[in-house]
């Protein structure tokens, strides 16, 4: 059966997981054994791309061509970029259109956030391909529950660019609940507090005989551990530097990494040393930092997560004491201060049984299992996080679908003309809770084609459908003729279908490199398997070796190991084959003897 895998495309780290007979599990990198892939992508001048820890190393020296936390930029327009981000990266600024999609300027190329994410997705896919020894094409990707339509669409585009079929976008807190539900089979009301590297979500769920019903969700897609790092770096490191150095991307990047490291250490210890050493810039800072000092500095950031919790409870019609279990998700919940504040807010000790870094990927794998048709005992009823509406007269937003409505959700709206012989009606789709259009996020615009008739005569019914991914689809029917009218929807902050196609074509070069990469991974995996079996046989069955055989095998083993360190997959394959051949007689003797032993036993038991 075809595998559908689950992907946690995180701000800081990304993971890929699948379900087998042993349950959901995260795939580790076959080389390093690491389960998390840092969500860092570095673009080299020679058109090569590096992802993960290696890219993290490159960030120290090449901060402008190395993108971290790309998730923060998904589905945004240039107008949403913060001054702090402008210091760290170079963007393609379109003077004519400040509402245009974010594009990084890297070397002489333009790179959109979905393209950067696609690089991460491809790397994860390689991992899963190697682990499953099978092509991986269909995926479930998790997104913050509070992601709006543009951010979701951008994530879907990233999947497409990576050659994947995204069969579901799953909300991260819901994924976590799924992983916990499977784990403990709880029933009742739970709150999931998901504080990650760049985003914060809270969801309130009712668990009911295998149904996970989301009652409400809230959050902030621009609040996470990154902000804590920024705060520590600014307060304790950058404050001591000159204006020019503070704005230097390399200094900034190194200060942020130092802050991140100190934050992590202070989750375990009471005190640490904060270091920032860049001799070429004349910087040499080393100072002690206590947990108490850090907590006082970041207290305000943590406090900002509690208002969404209050709102989510209110929307669910619940009080804190109704919540029976609180689940913590996301790397930022490792901080003792976060655990303490969440515990105080809900009046109970939060659950942390599952590794907060892995729980979302595990939940995504569980959902992938359901979608593949292998499991029917669990069902998610999720909601749309933000109200959807259209612009009406006077720049006012008219709500069509309220936030926290269970998805899929659809609503029909009738449109007609205001003047005679009008040939089109323009529709502007918005998302948000505020009354005025200018305070809401613009999602898309489309125009309904209309046959020229006297004003008010044409009647076109438009269906707004938010699908199970939380993504909007619109369709129109002319009620007079009963005909479907096709609509061209132009996303406000997204790639058009044509752009996705073009980027896909451009990435064919990439794909060829990927095939090479995959062949290499497969060859190494195969070699590993044979090497492992040989080692085991040699240590357990040395008595079956014949004169000189051990030396002969050892020579080939050595050659295979050397080949695996290189990149020539043909050589690795050939040598692996050679190793199989030289060990065949030895393996045959072991097998013969065990068959004889088995037969012997059988004869004994037959007696």
């Amino acid at each position: 059966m075809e595998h559908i895998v689950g992907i946690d495309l995180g701000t800081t780290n990304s993971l890929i997981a699948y379900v087998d007979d042993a349950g959901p599990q995260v795939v580790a990198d076959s080389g390093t054994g690491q389960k998390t892939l840092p969500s860092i992508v570095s673009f080299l001048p020679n058109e090569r791309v590096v992802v993960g820890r290696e890219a993290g190393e490159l960030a120290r020296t090449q901060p402008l061509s190395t993108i971290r936390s790309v998730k923060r930029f998904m589905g945004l327009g240039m107008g949403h970029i913060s001054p702090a981000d402008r210091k760290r990266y170079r963007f393609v600024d379109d003077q004519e259109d400040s509402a245009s999609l974010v594009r990084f300027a890297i070397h002489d190329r333009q790179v959109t956030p979905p393209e950067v994410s696609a690089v991460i997705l491809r790397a994860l896919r390689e991992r899963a391909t190697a682990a499953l020894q099978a092509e991986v094409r269909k995926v479930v990707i998790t997104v913050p529950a509070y992601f709006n339509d543009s951010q979701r669409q951008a994530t879907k585009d990233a999947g497409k660019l990576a050659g994947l079929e995204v069969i579901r976008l799953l909300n991260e807190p819901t994924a976590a609940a799924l992983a916990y539900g499977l784990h403990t089979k709880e029933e009742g009301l739970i709150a999931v507090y998901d504080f990650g590297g760049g985003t914060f979500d809270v969801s309130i769920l009712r668990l009911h005989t295998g149904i996970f019903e989301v009652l409400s969700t809230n959050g902030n897609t621009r609040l996470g551990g990154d902000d804590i790092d920024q705060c520590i770096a600014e307060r304790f490191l950058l404050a001591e530097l000159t204006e020019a150095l503070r704005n230097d991307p390399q200094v900034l990047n190194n200060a942020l990494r130092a802050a991140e490291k100190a934050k992590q250490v202070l989750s375990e210890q009471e005190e640490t040393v904060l270091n920032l050493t860049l001799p070429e810039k004349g910087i040499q800072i080393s100072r002690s930092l206590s947990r108490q000092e850090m907590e006082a500095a970041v207290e305000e950031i943590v406090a900002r997560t509690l208002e969404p919790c209050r709102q989510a409870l209110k929307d669910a019609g619940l009080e804190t004491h109704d919540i029976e279990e609180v689940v913590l998700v996301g790397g930022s919940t490792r901080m003792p201060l976060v655990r303490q504040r969440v515990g105080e807010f809900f009046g109970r000790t939060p659950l942390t049984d599952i590794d907060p870094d892995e729980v979302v990927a595990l939940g995504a794998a569980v959902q992938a299992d359901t979608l593949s048709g292998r499991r029917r005992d669990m069902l998610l009823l999720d909601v749309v996080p933000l109200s959807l509406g259209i612009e009406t007269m006077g720049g006012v937003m008219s709500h069509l679908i309220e936030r926290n409505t269970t998805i899929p959700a659809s609503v029909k709206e009738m449109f007609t003309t205001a003047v005679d012989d009008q040939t089109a009606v323009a529709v502007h789709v918005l998302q948000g809770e505020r009354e005025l259009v200018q305070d809401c996020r613009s999602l898309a615009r489309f125009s309904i084609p209309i046959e020229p008739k006297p004003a008010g005569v044409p009647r076109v019914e438009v269906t707004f459908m938010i699908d199970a991914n939380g993504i909007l689809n619109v369709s129109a029917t002319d009620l007079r003729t009963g005909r479907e009218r096709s609509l061209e929807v132009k996303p406000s902050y997204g790639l058009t279908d044509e752009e996705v196609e073009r980027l896909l074509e451009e990435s064919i070069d990439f794909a060829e490199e990927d095939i090479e990469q995959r062949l290499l991974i497969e060859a190494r995996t195969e070699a590993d398997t044979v090497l492992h079996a040989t080692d085991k046989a040699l240590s357990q069955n040395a008595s079956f070796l014949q004169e000189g055989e051990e030396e002969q095998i050892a020579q080939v083993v050595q050659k295979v190991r050397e080949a695996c360190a290189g990149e020539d997959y043909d050589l690795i394959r050939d040598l692996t084959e050679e190793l199989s051949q030289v060990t065949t007689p030895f393996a045959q003797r072991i097998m013969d003897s065990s068959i004889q032993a088995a037969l012997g036993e059988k004869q004994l038991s037959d007696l």
Partner: protein
Amino acid sequence: MATPTVARCWRCQDEHRPQVFCPACEALQPLPPDIDYFTLFGLARHPRLDEQALAQTYYELSRQLHPDLHQTGTAQEREASLQNTALVNRAYRTLRDPVQRGRYWLALNGEPLGKENNKVPPALALFVFEVQEKLAAVREARPAETEGTQDALAGLRAEMTQVRDDLDDRMRDLQHRLAANFSKWGQADGSSALLSELKRVLSEMAYLRTLTRDVEKALSIL
């Protein structure tokens, strides 16, 4: 809003009463888009209903229809699953909330609550006037910009809290009246009196909801 009585299976052409799965070939069927919500949930067409039974049926329908469980089906089945689930979700959202259910009931009886709903209901006129005056006082106090006038703000906050409690009391009272009205439908006594009482109660509730939102907004900045 009439509910169609016969449906034809898209796969085997069997004709049957509208239902989720074809009784002949078990294929998932697109539900008639104009099916009334009570019928959809297998309930009597009556505004008073058993909320627990409603939730139970909702879970059962979701288990049968949800797109997650039809991902491996044909394009037609996936589309039917999507449309049906959207319909069931909308119906459940309407029926579980007494106010929305009441409005739906009015529409179902050919008496939709129209524009009159935007005017201040006469019974509330005096109360609304008082609350609006207090809200204006809060706006004039500009709490966001004022420092050092904590006493004045505390006074406003106390008044607003009192208003909110008043609103809550009135809302509870209206909820009782609504429930009482629901349970009288279908009995012998004049349905036109019931109809106008239902319209009155729902208009007042809609108005108080908007007012409550304004008062809470005021309280959050005080």
